[in-house]
């Protein structure tokens, strides 16, 4: 993570430097969108939630403590925004085609396989309880520590470890099953 850099960018943003805010958005965009996607299956909803989260973060930037890492602070806002949206949205049911299945640059069968795996993983994630989904993704995919995740989710660190453990077991089972059917 880029703790000191982030704090400097936050300071510049608070001083009115729009470019600094742009750099923060660029730095955390992919992560914020992925985290939103854990909670909102529709990618458009997830993107809307991630955008809302960035603007909410900007509005509350003066409350960010620059001595602490920026990532968990932002991820908490993204999580809350996405959960809030998932509870009050009008569901957009149509899931668009996975673009990786249709774009070039990779052998079609390999791309299809990866697209299929991604889809299965998303399905498996959606079957997990919300907190387990977040815990395993923040730990394994986003690289946050158990302590940071505990802070993001406002739960004891033991709960995070347990959530990661259970979520991994279910996801690994699913992946093994999928691999067997592909081979």
């Amino acid at each position, binding site marked *: 993570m880029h703790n000191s850099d982030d704090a400097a960018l936050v300071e510049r943003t608070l001083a009115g430097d729009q470019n600094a805010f742009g750099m923060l*958005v*660029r730095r955390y965009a*992919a992560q914020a969108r992925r985290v939103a*996607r854990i909670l909102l299956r529709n990618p458009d909803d997830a993107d809307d939630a991630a955008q809302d989260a960035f*603007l909410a973060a900007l509005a509350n930037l003066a409350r960010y403590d620059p001595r602490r890492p920026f990532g968990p602070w932002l991820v908490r806002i993204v999580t809350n925004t996405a959960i809030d949206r998932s509870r009050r949205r009008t569901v957009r049911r149509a899931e668009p085609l996975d673009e990786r299945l249709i774009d070039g640059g990779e052998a079609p069968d390999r791309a299809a396989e990866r697209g299929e795996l991604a889809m299965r993983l998303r399905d498996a994630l959606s079957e997990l309880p919300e907190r387990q989904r977040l815990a395993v993704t923040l*730990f394994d*995919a986003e690289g946050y520590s158990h302590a940071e995740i505990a802070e993001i989710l406002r739960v004891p660190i033991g709960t995070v470890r347990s959530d990661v453990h259970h979520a991994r077991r279910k*996801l690994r089972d699913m992946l*093994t099953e999928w*691999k067997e059917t592909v081979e």
Partner: protein
Amino acid sequence: MTHGPSDFERDERLGRALRQALDPAGDAEAFTARVLARFERPRARAWDTLASWSRLGVVAAAAVALVVIVVLSFRGGADVSIEAALAASNTDEATQLMTEDNSPGTDVLFAIANEDN
């Protein structure tokens, strides 16, 4: 995948698969541009509002200032003492008129009126 690392270590393969599954399909730059555009919009609206407030404010301040000047000048006129007025006029006639104890009698006034006619 069944024999993964311990719960205290990251499972890199699972992490990579999760990132691929959750990675947004759309362009990252377009996303950033949309966020910045939304950041700019309310800011522009805020400035417009402030500008309209400032225009109203200038008009209101001018009106208030005008009223204050009028009131102060009116009150200032009332506050002028006789002595100050005399000093300002500084003429014998005025002094005589203002300080004369005996106002002209009615006979004098009639005489003046008849002269005019």
